[in-house]
């Protein structure tokens, strides 16, 4: 099992395409940081209008913690795409290359192969999130300094004391890893059905976009299905920047995402064990 996992990870990180994801995260993050570095005060002023009328806010408001929060919020759609780029390619890409045929002439079980593909996609996702944490949080802290964090919401704001922030980010990144693992498992499932990686990648994004639109529309006709979709739960990480932290809601979201992940993975194993390899 470990041998297969090592090989899968080796293949992922030997491919130039993998590093495009890390490059994209770096590029987007730097662009946002640069924009906030030059025009951050106006940006912040716009959001703080209502607050400044009633409160006297002092100190380094535009600090690394707030900038990281803005970056994470901006990358809601991009990170799933970057995860799908690798997970969606894992089976379909091998089928397209023709290497799936060669892999499955070896004495390894198909279930093990799917599990190791999933685990390697998870490890890639984890490393991508760690990379995001480094460039979004730690680089922002270096560029903008630290201070108390203000989480500005549509109808309120939350002030989080400086020494109370980092553990929240740690939990938020853990939650984001879980959410992205759900995306990885969905991509892997779609990848098992296809013989070309483009289909699963586009389909994954299509499903995420359609579900997100359904949730944002708030139409009564969809109200009874929205709680069962996984996309509303993907933003559960935001809860760690509330006061008090809604642990019950975050827990429900985490369980929903974990359940979806297990269902997607089980469906992949079931289907792949019955699939004729004709590619």
């Amino acid at each position, binding site marked *: 099992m470990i*041998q*297969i996992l090592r*090989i899968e990870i*080796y*293949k992922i990180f*030997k*491919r*130039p395409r993998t590093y495009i994801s890390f490059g994209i995260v770096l590029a987007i993050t730097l662009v946002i940081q640069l924009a906030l570095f030059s025009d951050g005060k106006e940006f912040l002023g716009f959001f703080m209008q209502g607050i400044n009328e009633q409160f006297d806010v002092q100190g380094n408001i535009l600090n690394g913690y707030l900038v990281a929060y803005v970056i994470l919020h901006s990358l809601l759609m991009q990170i799933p795409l970057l995860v799908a780029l690798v997970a969606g390619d894992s089976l379909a890409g091998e089928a397209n*290359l*023709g*290497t799936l*045929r*060669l*892999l*499955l*002439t*070896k*004495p*390894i*079980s*198909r279930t093990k192969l799917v599990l190791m593909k999933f685990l390697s996609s998870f490890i890639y996702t984890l490393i991508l999130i760690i990379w995001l944490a480094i460039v979004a949080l730690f680089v922002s802290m270096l560029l903008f300094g630290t201070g108390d964090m203000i989480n500005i919401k549509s109808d309120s704001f939350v002030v989080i004391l400086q020494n109370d922030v980092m553990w929240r980010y740690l939990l938020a990144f853990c939650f984001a890893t879980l959410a992205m693992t759900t995306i990885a498992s969905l991509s892997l499932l779609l990848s098992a059905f296809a013989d070309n990686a483009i289909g699963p990648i586009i389909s994954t994004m299509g499903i995420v976009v359609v579900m997100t639109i359904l949730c944002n529309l708030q139409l009564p006709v969809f109200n009874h299905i929205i709680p069962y979709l996984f996309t509303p739960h993907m933003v559960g990480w935001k809860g760690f920047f509330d006061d008090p932290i809604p642990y019950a809601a975050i827990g429900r979201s985490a369980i929903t995402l974990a359940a979806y992940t297990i269902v997607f993975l089980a469906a992949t194993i079931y289907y792949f*064990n*019955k699939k*004729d*390899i*004709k590619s």
Partner: protein
Amino acid sequence: MPSIVETRNLYKSFGSFKAVNGLSFSIEKGDVYGFLGQNGAGKSTTMRMIMGLIFPDSGEIFINGETFNNSKRHLLKNIGAVIERPDMYGYLSGWDNLRIFAALSDKNITKARLHEVLEVVGLTGREKDKVKAYSQGMKQRLGIAIALVHQPDLLVLDEPTNGLDPQGIAEMRQLINRLSGDLGKTVMVSSHLLHEIEQVATGMLVIHKGKKIVSGKVKDLLNPDETLVSVAVTNDTHFVEKLNQSQWGKMMERTTSGSATFKMNPSVIPDLNKWLVEHDFRVKEIKSEHSLEAYFLSLTHDTDTQN
């Protein structure tokens, strides 16, 4: 001799297309088993079923006497295969590809063994190059190295000469002969190029529209006395009459003006030529038709006619 692979009543359909239709055969240890059929005859589908890539609709596969199915993939440990194209990871070196697939073979394979197998297929010195820079022939040889590296008892090679130039085809033939002769491997090799099978195989199976037409030892199936020899002359006056009156008449299969076709052993062609010259026929051409090709075409033609 015990069978290394045996199939019993294999069936496989894709939609309404019957790819394999009740196929039963066995391959004995030490054989070079030719799997012969036209494109679409069901060769690749059968080989994929033996390798667990495709699941039969019904029927059984036995590897070393044990029933093979998806839950018994460990039986593939002693088989190496190149199915259709030798596709590999182009962004990795030949060495990395070999190392990766060797590691998946569930056997302890040393670096020395990797070098040894590269030597066998003639890729020493090119192993550090990226596979995307390899020629088709080099990819094919790397594919065989991957199939060989874990020292399997049986090699399954699906159309191994596809896409190769004449030199590559000759090298592949030599390699198969070496694998069988020097290394004692059992080889199952498919081809639609009939003379290839004749040159490397000891046993063979002819498959057509998913059905077995005939199987057995090549030397038994290809009786040299059945070779078709055609003769063409420029002066055809009384050509057929004189032939009919001679000892060659009983070997004659068909005639046209100025030409005749005989079923005979090629060793008597010089005698036929001598007779023609002695009877003042000016010989334009004597051609021995490929025995296996004629044999194969007659078999498939018969099957088509029956259907």
